[in-house]
């Protein structure tokens, strides 16, 4: 995947198909390798922003989104993923019969494809085998295990249906695990800190730090400052009623924790 350093939003407006407006006019930019925090009260449009970046078809969107010089605003969700965008969901949905490892493998093969045919299968139903342009299957499995252990994820979880019957903490960790293995250019974490105890919070924060050091731009959407005790944000942006009201650095987050959003 080609590394592009800036993700920028220009005059983004978003509404539900029912007509309800959620984001009124948002312009901001993110840099790969940095940590960007987006804060705001409930209902301010933070999660909508995450969904809009990822191209959720539930929203009607106006404005432009660029990765470097490439306009991605008309791309589909999977095409955006291929441009290096990743979303860690706030409450990810379970998919029966699709294991964590199966999902990661399929996603990896889509993101790091190759047209190089390794071997032709005799049986037309199996057709051809392709090599990935990234890690081999064995290397991929090793990477998954390495990061799983780093995140204190029980290995048995990897072969279970994704998010089916997982605890809140397990869900969040599995989202971080995917980001670490898939190495996006920009990863959006939508309330990754909610429902985590202190230990899990530290582990997740460490995961995000590792990801940042790999060069990923991490966009952290949160209510609270608590995750920020373990991370060092480059920028903090406050959103209220669908628009940017304040921009600053880590100090801004601390101030908000003290005085609230000024409701």
């Amino acid at each position, binding site marked *: 995947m080609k590394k592009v350093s800036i993700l920028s939003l220009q005059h983004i407006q978003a509404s539900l198909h029912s007509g309800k407006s959620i984001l009124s006019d948002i312009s901001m930019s993110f840099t790969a390798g940095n940590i960007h925090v987006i804060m705001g009260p409930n209902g301010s449009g933070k999660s909508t922003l995450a969904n809009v970046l*990822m191209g*959720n*078809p*539930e929203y009607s969107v106006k404005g432009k989104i660029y990765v470097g010089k490439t306009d991605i605003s008309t791309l*589909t*969700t*999977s095409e955006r*993923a*291929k441009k290096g965008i*990743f*979303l860690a*969901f706030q409450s*990810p*949905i379970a*998919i*029966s*019969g*699709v294991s964590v490892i*199966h*999902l990661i*493998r*399929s*996603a990896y*093969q*889509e*993101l790091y*494809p190759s047209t190089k045919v390794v071997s032709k299968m*005799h*049986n*037309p*139903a*199996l*057709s*051809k085998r*392709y090599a990935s342009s990234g890690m081999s299957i064995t290397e991929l499995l090793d990477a998954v295990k390495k990061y799983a252990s780093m995140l204190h994820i029980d290995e048995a979880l990897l072969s279970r*249906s994704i998010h089916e019957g997982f605890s809140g903490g397990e869900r969040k960790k599995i989202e971080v695990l*995917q980001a670490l293995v*898939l190495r996006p250019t920009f990863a959006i974490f939508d309330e990754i800190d909610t429902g985590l105890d202190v230990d899990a919070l530290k582990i997740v924060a460490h995961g995000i730090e590792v990801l940042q050091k790999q060069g990923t731009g991490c966009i952290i959407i949160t209510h609270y400052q608590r995750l920020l005790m373990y991370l060092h944000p480059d920028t903090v942006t406050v959103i209220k009623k669908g628009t940017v009201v304040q921009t600053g650095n880590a100090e801004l987050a601390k101030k908000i924790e003290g005085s609230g959003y000024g409701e």
Partner: protein
Amino acid sequence: MASNTQSFVKAPYVFGFHKPEDYIYKSGRGLSESVIRDMSAQKGESKWMLDFRLKSLAIYEKKMMPSWGPNLVDIQFENLFYFIRPVKSQADAWKDLPDAIRETYDKIGIPEMEKKFLSGVSAQYESEVVYKSIEKTLHEKGVIFTDMDTAVKKYPELVKKYFGTLIPPADNKFAALNSAVWSGGSFIYVPKNVSVGLPLQAYFRINAANMGQFERTLIIADEGSYVHYIEGCTAPIYSTDSLHSAVVEIFVEKGARVRYSTVQNWSTNVYNLVTKRARVEEEGIMEWVDGNIGSKITMKYPSCYLVGKKAHGEVLSVAYAGKGQIQDTGGKMIHLAPETTSRIISKSVSGGGGRTSYRGLVYIASNAKGARNNVVCDALILDHLSRSDTYPKMDVRVTQSITEHEASVSRISDEQLFYLTSRGITPAAAASMIVNGFIEPIVKALPLEYAVELNRLMDLEMLGSVG
């Protein structure tokens, strides 16, 4: 899982090739006493089998078509060929097969499968088994695994004792038809306390247009034995309709266990009307694992007659109905003894205007105290053109028993699609993953190769229906 889903175009039916017809013997069109006498003579059968066939023909002619279920009026019985013999004698080795037949099997991929972990391959081309290889160990253990025609000649007493006793010709019109004109199929006998470690397999294939295929399978698992039999079907495409009507009888003796797995992928002009039944004695276990993807209309309801105390029956079935297809499947559990248990898990997927139906019967007789049954049928409907119906029937004659029925109908959720596509997976591949995940509980009961084949076939179908 498919990683290369670059094409949204309906994938062609990959097994839809066919070879020039090259046969030693082909009966005329239609069915008559003379066709049956001819067939029986060609096969060199003894009188009892000829009599059985003729008696069955008389029943067939009197029986009405089923008054329920899918419409079968388009089957042109008088246009079918009822018996075709492809080669003079059975080939013992792969290399002895005629080139055209061998190429056909090559395309399906049989030799590789054989090389791997199969203990015995018995491949049916047209009406007779032409190629088979049986491992020595089977002989040493006293296991008989042969085609049905050979069994009638070689083991007449054993065959006579069981043949047509569980599914008599009068059971239904298609059982009568099969009894009259049956050809090929497998015969398995597993002696007492013998466990056959690797699955026994047969591939069936129809090559000639307008040809009816009526194989007949009989499995006897003696006390305390175990066997897993696998039947897989692929057929080429033809403009005229073909009929496949098999009869499968299984005897599970005391403490024995039989698993019967099928992956059916007939081309979409084949009527697949099959009668499958097992009789399960005390503490015996019968498991039907049934995958239905192909055919125009399939009607198939594997049954277990639980006649011995604590006998257990299972049907795990998965069906996919695409454009123009009807999959009318299900299962029957007949509890005739105390403490018998059974389970039916049916998963169906309909897309492109296809139609799936679950049709099931659970009968618990008055003496079956402590019987337990559980039915789960889940349907996934891919679009607004498609349809799924459930026709469960329960007849419980004793109060001290438990029956459970759960049914669900679902669609692929937008939320699941968004999640998977956010990982870079294309919408078509994502839908395919969700569908394969949905049927996974059944697929994992299949041997690995069949699971892979079923997933692949499902992917090919999905490419045509989602985009």
